[in-house]
Each structure stands twice: as structure tokens, then as C-alpha cells.
């Protein structure tokens, strides 16, 4: 029995995507910069993919910059924008529950002389918009708020935040990695100036991503070279990867309606059944405004790594916000920002479903989890019924 419920960490590449990519490794291997037939062919497919991905988020072809992934896209957005526009101001706004890459980029920018405000969230992980407005100063040049939390799945009021930023003439960036393929993203409607996407998160290959840069929004490049991607991201284009991401976007755009319906059923079964069966279990995040594929819990008296190892023994792959499973031995900053104590953050469990899950995977988790929690609680000196 193998049950994979850790789709936020990594997704398998769809077979249809791999088939679309294969010809570009051998038959059509050209470099778009070359002035011959092979080069033309590569250029043609690159631009077709750019158009596809623009359509995926409601943008235009000229606004798509291919990168090596979402982390690079986040770096290019924040550092690239801040460096280019530092004459206008030196203040950036992010939230307390951004992806770790945004937090660390912000730290780097602080070292470079920028000021960063982190907006707190409520107990469900929603960014406090009043506080965001209050923190805006005349020095504020960029607001970066993730479309949804990659951990607890809480969706933000992106369009409202985008509107505020637009009115105040501040650039708005959103890391959409957790949300892409699960909610319809429209950069026009959401007033987004910069948007990060990852290929793997829509079942495309790893190592490819996109930064959407709205027309007339000026950024500096981070990688200098032969001037590819309008000079904003040099380096010979990863054509097979780009074809993979574009194909993945086409597939998910078609199948999203059906998938989201299925994931929502799975998620709601987990969110309803697990706290019913297991005592002293809480749901983390917002009950309604959350990604359709995310179920996040905490269990009193037990520690997440033990929970993970026990589930792994039963063939079930999941995630936790526990410190013991992280490289830094710090518990998840997102869970702490919700107002949880360290000991509560340690006992958390994240289940994210995806394209290849079946109903019986959910049955299996609901069947196996109570016994494991019970066994670990019997070992626990701090659990009291």
C-alpha cells in the first residue's frame, strides 16, 4: 500500500507532459538564438509556450519570463524590483506567513539597506488588510503576499490587496506556487504586477518556472549573460522544460474543474472525519477559505516527526511543521504566526492531495491515523485525556 499525500512538497510529472517534452531533447534540440532552421524551430516553440503560459494566468506573451523555478522567480521579483526602483523608496511589505524563500530574500534586502514590514495574520492565517494599509508609507515600493499558504492552505484576499497596491501606486507581487492549478489566477482581475509560478506544481518538470512581469513594470536582472528573456534572465533557454511547463498548464487548465471538485471531496472528508475520530485534534488554517487539496491538523501531546515515521511505516507519505523534521530545528514560522505555541506546532500534520490520489487513499489515512496517534500518545509524558 503506497499512499502519497504530500503533493505540496513535490508532484510527479504527468506522462503526457513527458511525451510532449521528449522530441525537444533530440529531434528539435536547437538554440533559439541560432540563425538557422533548427534555431527557428526552437524560437517558434519557445514563443508558443510563452503565449500558452500567458493565457494560463490572463497575461500577455511579452509579460512572461522563464526562470529555473519559483525560487528564482521570487528572487528576480523582489531583488530585481527593489534594486531597479530604489530611487522611489526603500520600503517593502510582506506577510508573516510567506514562503521561506520570500522571508530569506527580505532578510537579504534588509542587509542591502531596505526596510521590510511583516504583516501579521489572524488565527486562520489571513493577512490583516487594515494593518497592511497602516504600514504603507511614502517609501513603500513593493508589496509581496502569497496567493495561498503552502503550509496551511489559507487563501488570501489577493484581488483586494492588489487593488490597494494599485491605488497607492505600489507594485504588487504574489507567489502563486501553492495556488496554481487549484484556483483560477487572473493577473488583470487581481491587479498583480509580478507573479511567480513553478512548473512542478502543475505536474510539469522540476527546474522550470515563470515570473510574470506586467508591462511597464521595470526590474533589474539577477543573471547577466547573452541577453535572453529580454535581458532579464540570461542563459540558453531550457526548451524541453519550457515545453513541459506549457503542456502541464494546458492540461491543468482543461482538467481543473473536475480535479478541484474531487480534491474538495477528499479534503472535506479528512477535515470532518479526523477531528471526529481523534480526540484533542484541531484543524489549522481557515475552514472555508483554503486550498481545495489541503488538510492541516495538530494533535495534542505528540510530535510530528514520530507521526511521519509511523505513517511512513504504513506506506503513507505526509508532511509536518515540526522542528525535528526541519533543517534548522525551528518549528514552522507559519504555525507560530497563527498564535500556536511551539509544542502545538510540533504536533502538526499536513496532508495535500493531487492528481493521482484515489478515494481509497483517503480511506486508508482515516483508518490508520487514529491508531498511530493513540500509540504515540501512550508514549507521551505530556498527553492528558
Amino acid at each position, binding site marked *: 500500500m503506497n499512499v502519497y499525500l504530500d503533493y505540496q512538497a513535490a508532484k510527479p510529472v504527468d506522462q503526457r507532459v513527458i511525451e510532449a517534452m521528449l522530441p525537444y531533447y533530440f529531434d528539435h534540440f536547437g538554440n533559439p538564438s541560432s540563425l538557422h532552421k533548427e534555431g527557428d524551430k526552437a524560437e517558434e516553440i519557445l514563443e508558443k509556450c510563452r503565449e500558452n503560459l500567458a493565457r494560463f494566468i490572463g497575461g500577455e506573451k511579452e509579460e512572461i519570463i522563464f526562470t529555473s523555478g519559483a525560487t528564482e522567480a521570487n528572487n528576480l521579483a523582489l531583488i530585481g524590483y527593489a534594486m531597479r526602483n530604489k530611487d522611489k523608496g526603500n520600503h517593502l511589505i510582506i506577510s508573516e506567513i510567506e514562503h521561506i524563500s520570500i522571508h530569506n530574500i527580505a532578510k537579504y534586502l534588509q542587509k542591502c539597506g531596505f526596510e521590510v514590514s511583516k504583516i501579521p495574520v489572524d488565527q486562520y492565517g489571513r493577512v490583516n488588510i487594515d494593518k497592511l494599509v497602516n504600514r504603507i508609507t511614502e517609501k513603500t515600493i513593493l508589496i509581496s503576499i502569497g496567493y495561498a499558504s503552502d503550509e496551511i492552505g489559507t487563501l488570501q484576499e489577493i484581488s483586494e490587496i492588489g487593488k490597494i497596491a494599485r491605488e497607492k501606486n505600489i507594485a504588487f507581487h504574489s507567489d502563486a506556487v501553492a495556488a496554481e492549478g487549484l484556483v483560477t489566477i487572473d493577473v488583470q482581475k487581481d491587479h498583480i504586477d509580478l507573479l511567480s509560478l513553478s512548473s512542478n506544481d502543475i505536474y510539469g518538470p522540476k527546474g522550470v518556472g515563470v515570473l510574470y512581469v506586467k508591462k511597464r513594470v521595470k526590474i533589474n536582472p539577477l543573471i547577466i549573460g547573452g541577453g535572453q528573456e529580454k535581458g532579464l534572465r540570461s542563459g540558453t533557454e531550457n526548451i524541453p522544460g519550457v515545453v513541459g511547463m506549457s503542456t502541464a498548464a494546458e492540461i491543468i487548465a482543461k482538467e481543473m474543474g473536475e480535479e478541484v471538485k474531487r480534491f474538495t471531496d477528499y479534503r472535506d472528508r479528512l477535515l470532518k472525519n479526523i477531528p471526529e475520530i481523534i480526540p484533542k485534534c*484541531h484543524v489549522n488554517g481557515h475552514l472555508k477559505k483554503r486550498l481545495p487539496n489541503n488538510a492541516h491538523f495538530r494533535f495534542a501531546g505528540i510530535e510530528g516527526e514520530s507521526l511521519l515515521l509511523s505513517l511512513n511505516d504504513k506506506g503513507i507519505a505526509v508532511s509536518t511543521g515540526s522542528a525535528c523534521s526541519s533543517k534548522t530545528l525551528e518549528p514552522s514560522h507559519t504555525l507560530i504566526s497563527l498564535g500556536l505555541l511551539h509544542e502545538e506546532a510540533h504536533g502538526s500534520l499536513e496532508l495535500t492531495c493531487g492528481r493521482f490520489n484515489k478515494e481509497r487513499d483517503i480511506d486508508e489515512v482515516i483508518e490508520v491515523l487514529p491508531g498511530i496517534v493513540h500509540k504515540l500518545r501512550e508514549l507521551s509524558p505530556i498527553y492528558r485525556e
Partner: protein
Amino acid sequence: MGTLHYSPTVMDHFRNPRNVGSLEGNNVAMGRVGNPVCGDLMDIYIEVENDRIVDIKFKTFGCGSAIATSSMITEMVKGKTLDEAMKVSRKDVASELDGLPPIKMHCSNLAADALHEAIKNYRKMQAQQPEEAQKEIPPENKKIIGEQKFLNHGLYHRVDDISQFKDKRVIVPDRGNKSIELAMALTEQTGRVVFLSSSKDISGSSDIKTKLKRSDVKVLYESELLEIKGSEDVEKVRVLDKNEDEEYELSVDSVIILN
């Protein structure tokens, strides 16, 4: 992380922990190390006859290696004299387990320390040293940093309309029965109510204490509110864990300190 980082022996002890439980009796002592804040806490119980460990049990909250080291040490020292058991080191436990991942060597390898604590406690008990008299620190109304600044901006001394705390994260320091009743009433408004008691117990009557323990209120003992923080309104509080002598921050929206 992943199972591949743990030796088969670690995984065996994690899957089938030996000697789980607790012990009671005149010749039993317990040692506790770690704390739940950092994610590991172990209790080791020893039963001693003629200076020899005749029985040993443990309970552990923690990661895979925390559980495995506790289980392993119970097997290593059962039947040993106290002097022999005192010599068992963290390193010995790790090597009996065929090694631990480097990152786990310090934080989750506390079993030897817990055993040594238990032995020390047993010896203290035998020497019939009188328990250190519990110094009852009179509750003093210490100044809380930020109390002035946030009054009516998330900090309240009285509650007129409890519905203003709907969906807010509220922290209520112990000020007797009234504060306990308030904390319990608040759970009707919001999913997050933290009650802060500066001692090991709560000040109210036993009836109300039982009710509080059964409620959805998160009770923190031996904890003291040091500071209220935020930009315009309350955003965080700094709390002292007196038992561990550690300070930490907690994200909250409101603080209610009844007069």
C-alpha cells in the same frame, strides 16, 4: 529526514519501544529532561533494589531518535548497579543504536541525562534529604512592558461586550475566578483563548478549575506575561516560562487583564 537517515536499530526501537510506562513505589525515582517547547521531553522511572536497577520504564514526547534513545537506554541499564548506570553516556546510547544523524546528537539524545537525573533523585531520596521547601513567591503585580501603550488598543482591564472578541486570539492572565469564567465564556466567541497562570496551579475554586481544564481554553502554567508588543494594536506578547526560565513570543490579538 526520512527513514533512511536512521539506522535499522533506531527504527526497531522506534517501532517497538521497550519498557514503555511509569513506575510507582517507595524505591522508585523519576528523572525528567527536555521541554515540549524544543520538541523533546522524556521521563525515565527506575526501581532500585540493593543499589541495582531492577525495573525501568519511560515516557517520551519527541522525534524518532528521542523515542529510540529512551527505549535503548532502558535495555542497557536494566540489572546494572547505580554506579554502572551513571557511567552510561549519551555517546554510549548513540553507538548502541548504531549511530544517530549528526543533527540529532544533541537535541534528541537526552536519555542518558534523564537516567542520571533519576539516579540522582533516587540517591537524594535515600539520603532522606528534606525536599527543598517550595518557596511560595507572593504574586506581585509586576509591571508589564507596553501596558500603557496598548490600553484599549487590544489590552483591556474590563469587558463590557464579549462579542468584540469574536475570532480574536485572546490571552487572559489568572486573576481569580472572574478571569477563569471570562476565559471559558470567550471560547464561545473564538477558537483561541490562552489562560496564563503564574504558578503550577490555578487560583480559582476546585470546581471551576475542573471546568477550565475540560474547556477549550489553552492553559499555560508557571507562565508570566512580560511584554505586550505591536505596531498600533496588540500583535504579540512575550511570555516567561518560569519552569524552563525561557522567554518566547506568542501571536495574539487581545490581552485581558482584569483588575
